[in-house]
C-alpha cells in the first residue's frame, strides 16, 4: 500500500467516486436498450390469465384485510368480485398504497385500481373510467374540544395534520395549508396512532374513512372544514391504445352506482365493523 500525501488524496477520492457513479449510470443506460417488450392489451391479458388483478389499499372502508383470516373485505373487494364474476375470471387482490397505485398500474402489477380519487394530475398518468363510484367530502378528525370551521383557520404553523402518504388528501392539504406541519404516514391506522399519541392534532381523510376511524377513538369528532372540498373516486386503468377495459368499466360503474350497489357495499362494510350506517353520510351524490 503506497503512502498518500494529502495533496493527492482529495482529487483521488473524488475521482474514485466519480468513476463509480459513471460506471453505474453506464450500466443502467445499457440495461435499458430494448428490454421492455410491447405488451398486449390488458383486456386480452385478463382473459388469457383467467384472473383480474385488483389493486387494494389497507384503508377502511375501501378495503381491509384481517391479518388472521387474510380475507379482503370492503368496497373495492366487493366491487372487484362483482367485476370478476361478470368477466368469468377469478379475482386477485394486490395490495398497494394510495401513493403507489399509479405506479402499480404503470408497472403492470394490477389491472385496475378502484376508489382512486380523481385528480387532473393522476389523469396525466392513468386513465379513469369517467363514471365515479362514490362521492365524498374531505373532513378532519379532531379532538372534542377543538373548534375549527374553515381551512384558512388551519393554515398556520401550529397545525399538525396527518395524512396518508401519496393520497389525494396529501396532495390537497400540502397545497392548501402551506404553513401547517403535515405528517405523511403509511396507513390510516398510523395516522390515527399519531393522533392518539399527540403527534398530530388532526387527521385529514374523506368522510367514509373518518366514520370508521372515529368509531375507534373516544375523544374525537368529525369536522368538515369550509369551503367544503368535495371529491369523487373512480376506477383507474393503465393508459394503452386498446380502450376495451376502460370503456367496459364506464358501463359497469354506471350500473353499480345507479343500482345502489356501491352504496350497499359501503354500508355492508360499516355493519361488519359494528358501525351503524345511518350515522354516516351517503357516498352517492344524490343522497348527500
Amino acid at each position, binding site marked *: 500500500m503506497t503512502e*498518500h500525501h494529502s495533496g493527492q488524496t482529495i482529487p483521488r477520492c473524488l475521482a474514485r467516486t466519480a468513476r463509480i457513479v459513471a460506471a453505474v449510470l453506464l450500466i443502467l443506460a445499457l440495461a435499458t436498450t430494448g428490454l421492455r417488450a*410491447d405488451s398486449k392489451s390488458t383486456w386480452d391479458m385478463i382473459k388469457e390469465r383467467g384472473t383480474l388483478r385488483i389493486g387494494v389499499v389497507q384503508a377502511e372502508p375501501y378495503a381491509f384485510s384481517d391479518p388472521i383470516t387474510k380475507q379482503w373485505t370492503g368496497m373495492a373487494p366487493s366491487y372487484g368480485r362483482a367485476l370478476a364474476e361478470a368477466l368469468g375470471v377469478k379475482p386477485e387482490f394486490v395490495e398497494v398504497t394510495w401513493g403507489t397505485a399509479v405506479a402499480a398500474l404503470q408497472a403492470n402489477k394490477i389491472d385496475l385500481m378502484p376508489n382512486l380519487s380523481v385528480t387532473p394530475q393522476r389523469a396525466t398518468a392513468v386513465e379513469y373510467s369517467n363514471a365515479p363510484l362514490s362521492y365524498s367530502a374531505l373532513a378532519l378528525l379532531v379532538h372534542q374540544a377543538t373548534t375549527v370551521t374553515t381551512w384558512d383557520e388551519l393554515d398556520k404553523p401550529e397545525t399538525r395534520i396527518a395524512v396518508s*402518504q401519496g393520497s389525494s388528501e396529501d396532495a390537497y392539504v400540502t397545497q392548501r395549508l402551506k404553513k401547517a406541519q403535515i405528517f405523511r404516514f403509511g396507513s390510516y391506522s398510523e395516522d390515527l396512532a399519531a393522533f392518539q399519541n399527540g403527534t398530530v392534532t388532526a387527521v385529514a381523510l374523506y368522510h367514509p374513512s373518518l366514520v370508521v376511524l372515529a368509531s375507534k377513538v373516544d375523544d374525537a369528532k368529525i369536522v368538515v372544514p369550509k369551503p367544503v372540498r368535495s371529491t369523487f373516486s373512480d376506477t383507474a386503468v393503465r393508459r394503452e391504445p386498446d380502450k376495451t377495459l376502460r370503456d367496459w368499466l364506464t358501463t359497469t360503474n354506471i350500473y353499480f352506482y345507479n343500482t345502489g350497489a356501491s352504496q350497499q357495499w359501503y354500508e355492508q362494510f360499516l355493519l361488519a365493523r359494528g358501525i351503524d350506517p345511518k350515522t354516516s353520510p351517503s357516498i352517492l351524490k344524490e343522497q348527500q
Partner: protein
Amino acid sequence: MGYSWDFTPVLRAMDLLLLGLGNTLMLTALAFLLGLPVGIALALARLSRHRVIAWPVGLMVDFLRCTPALVQLFWLFFALPRLLPVRLSPFGAALMALTVLSAAFVSEVFRGGIVSVERTQWEGARAIGMTSRQAMRRVILPQAVKRMIPVFLERLVELLKMSTIASTISYPDLLFRAQDIAQATYRPLEVFTVTALLYLVVIAATSEATRRVERHLARSGEGTVH
C-alpha cells in the same frame, strides 16, 4: 422500445431532495454524538461490580443488539406512548431509536476496548502509585479510546445507512422526500436512482474519510492496522 428516461422532474425537485439529505445528516450526526456518552455510560454500568446494575443493563444491551432497528423505532413511536404519557415527534422517536442503537454498539466496543488494554498497563499504573480511578482515567482510557476511534467511525457510516428507517415514520429525510417526489411525478426509476446515488456518494465519501483517519492512527502506532 426501451424505457424513456426523463430526469427533468427529479432535477426540478433537487432542492427538496437536498433538504432531505440535510435532515439525514443532521439526524445521523446527533444520534452519533448522543450515542457516545450514553454508550460509555452503559459500558461502565456493565463493568460495575454491583450485579444489581450490571445484570439488567447487560440484558437490555443484549436485547437492543438482537432486535432490528426498525422494530425498535416502531415500538418507540407507536407503542411507547401507550405505556407512558410521552409524546414523541417523528424526529424525537428516530433520534431516540438511532441513539439507542448506536449506544448499544458503542457500549460493547467500549467494554471490549477497555478489556483489551493489557493487564500490564494496569499493573504498571498501579506500580507507580496510581489509584484504580487514576489508572483508568490517565492510562487505560486514552489507549482504549484511540483503539476504538476507527470502530466508532465505522459505526458512523453504519448509522448513516440506518438513518433511512426514519422515513417510515414521516421524518422528512432524503428517502422520505424521495418517496414523496416519486409518487408525485410518477417517475420512480429516475427519482430512486438519483436518491440511491446521493446516498452512495455521501456514504462512500464518509467511508473513505474514516479510512484515512484509521490509516493516520495506524501510522502513529495506536490504531488497528488494516
